[in-house]
């Protein structure tokens, strides 16, 4: 992607790889599953074997199939929630930052109120009042989660918009006589993209956590297979205390992996926004090869010249201060 030039560091590549793998799993997981996740026609409490890679539950269901099928519900809810929340935070954050004055006060107040209310308890209260048939609907759950997850993004986007608002190119567009919504969406919005992407990933991360938590408490339909319901059933059948690690560890690891992947990609975006965060720009191996000091020098942001520097110093690469 050209607009978002992510640094090609191993961290970011690893993150992209993990996220890509799980997105693929979301799409093809249910077809890969060897058995139906709800079928109870196996022996109960089997340990992992060639037939059942992750053993069976105390009801005789294949855990590996549950894991594969569960990927879809988990990811779909997270993506729905992430998208809706991002739309909300862009609308509110950009409007507040650009309009300023009274609208800004009102919208900032709104997002501050939502930030201050602890999300999960609110989510539990809302969810516990939902009719049972809506609890199995991924979109309803996603919408509710997005309701508690948009405020942080709105805050960050507002700050960024405010810093962009007075830049020269926006001023120029205003003088030309561009319409207000055009300035907001075609001049300012593209410059918000890195911040936006970062807040989207963060919201997806939050949504996975929130959804899994709701499912773990038993507040989503236990008939829909996702990683949270797997943990719910494992906990309900005392799997952790009876050492059935193959039941409750795999879904937890999957959740953690998706989260790590998203966070790693986010690092890349952070480093794109603030280049100082890059691990000094040069890997330690390059440093050693070039004979540079191992420690970063204070006040200097080292830059590696790829083109030949003017012939002042015969060294092929050198540190320049910025």
């Amino acid at each position, binding site marked *: 992607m050209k607009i978002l030039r992510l640094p090609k560091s191993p*961290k970011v590549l*690893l993150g992209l790889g993990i996220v890509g793998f799980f997105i693929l799993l979301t799409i093809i997981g249910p077809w890969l599953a060897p058995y139906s996740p709800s079928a109870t026609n196996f022996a109960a409490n089997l340990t992992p074997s060639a037939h059942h890679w992750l053993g069976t539950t105390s009801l005789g269901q294949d855990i590996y199939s549950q894991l594969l099928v569960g990927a879809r519900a988990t990811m779909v809810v997270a993506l729905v929630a992430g998208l809706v929340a991002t739309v909300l935070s862009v609308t509110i954050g950009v409007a507040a930052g650009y309009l300023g004055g009274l609208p800004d006060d009102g919208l*900032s*107040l709104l997002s*501050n*109120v939502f*930030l*201050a*209310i*602890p*999300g*999960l*308890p*609110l989510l*539990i*209260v809302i969810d*516990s*009042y*939902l*009719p049972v048939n*809506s609890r199995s609907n991924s979109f309803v759950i996603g919408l509710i989660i997005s309701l508690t997850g948009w405020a*942080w993004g709105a805050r960050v986007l507002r700050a960024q918009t405010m810093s962009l608002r007075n830049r020269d190119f926006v001023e120029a567009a205003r003088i030309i006589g561009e319409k207000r919504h055009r300035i907001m969406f075609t001049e300012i919005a593209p410059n918000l993209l890195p911040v936006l992407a970062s807040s989207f990933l963060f919201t997806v*991360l939050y949504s996975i*956590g929130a959804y*899994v*938590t709701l499912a*773990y*408490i*038993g*507040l989503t339909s236990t008939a829909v297979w996702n990683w949270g319901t797997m*943990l719910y059933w494992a*906990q309900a059948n005392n799997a*952790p*205390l009876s*050492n059935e*690690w193959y039941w*409750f*560890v795999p879904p*937890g690891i999957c*959740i*953690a992996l*998706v*989260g*790590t992947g998203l*966070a*790693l990609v986010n*690092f890349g975006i*952070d480093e794109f926004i*603030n280049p*100082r*965060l890059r*691990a*000094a720009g040069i890997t*330690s191996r390059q*440093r050693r090869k070039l004979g540079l000091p*191992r420690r*970063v020098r*204070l*006040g200097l*942001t080292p830059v590696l010249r790829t083109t030949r520097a003017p012939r002042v110093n015969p060294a092929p690469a050198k540190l320049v201060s910025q």
Partner: protein
Amino acid sequence: MRMIGRRLSLYALTAWVAITVNFLLPRLMPGNPVQTMIGKLTGQVTPAEMNAIQLSFGGSFKHGLFSQYITYLTQLLHGNFGVSITLGAPVGAILRESVPWTVGLIGFSTIISFAVGTFAGALLGWTRGSRLDSLIPAATFFQAIPYFFLGTVMLLVFASNLHWFPVLGAYSQNVTPGWNWAFVGNVIRYGELPVISIVLSSIAGWMLGMRNMMITMVGEDFVLMAVAKGLPRRKVIMHAARNAVLPSIANLSLAIGLVVSGALLVELVFNYPGVGDLLLQAVLNEDYPLIQGIFLVITLTVLCANLIADVVYLALDPRTRTEAAV
């Protein structure tokens, strides 16, 4: 002082929103859950209890919405959170027993996590590019694990298999609760594992935030100046760290809500007698008055914690005293 005033009014407004949501939610949801619940309960509870439950929801449904709202607010002001359906006791009294456990557990772990995370973040930021950087992906992994899952795994490994820690609850059956050393020591012993698991899951956020701020600070002129003056390295690090920690503290008040949300579930895993455990029971039993009471109490507690963090921030950063920023 203006800033404190603005924050206070923000929190007052937030509290009001939470209360209003609490009031409106049962009425706006499809199928009117409260009506259903009251219908289900008729005949099961005494008329006096029924009356109390109705009052806590804002009186009889024959009145208009607005007068119900007024009744609801008056009841809250008198500290009446309603009567728990399953436990048969006033919600306020039930909460009084479990809130101290939660505040103790989560408050203590948050302080440790913030202190240790900030310290580690300062070091990481200072030694950027060194081998310590490999800590970052590990920390991210821990951060991505849901709190309750990490708690479960730690319970399994360290308590039930290795027997390093006691298994469940907040204190042993053998001691009598009270302010004596035996009991306090016992509570600390039982709290170790839950505290460690909360600290492990929440520390990465503080660490990474501090690292990023520290890196930005290290590039500032005043740090270069301090080095040029020949100050010892420890003093220079303190110089930079003191400035880098400010955004972390400013964020503290916003992050408390998130940490509390995650940590509530740790109580569930460890059978800790706090609000989180209570909340689960209430959800399972569809005990609406209790759920709502817990939500309100958690929200109000978080708001108080926010206010404390704001005051600390104000005391540390003189610039905010003149410039009002919400």
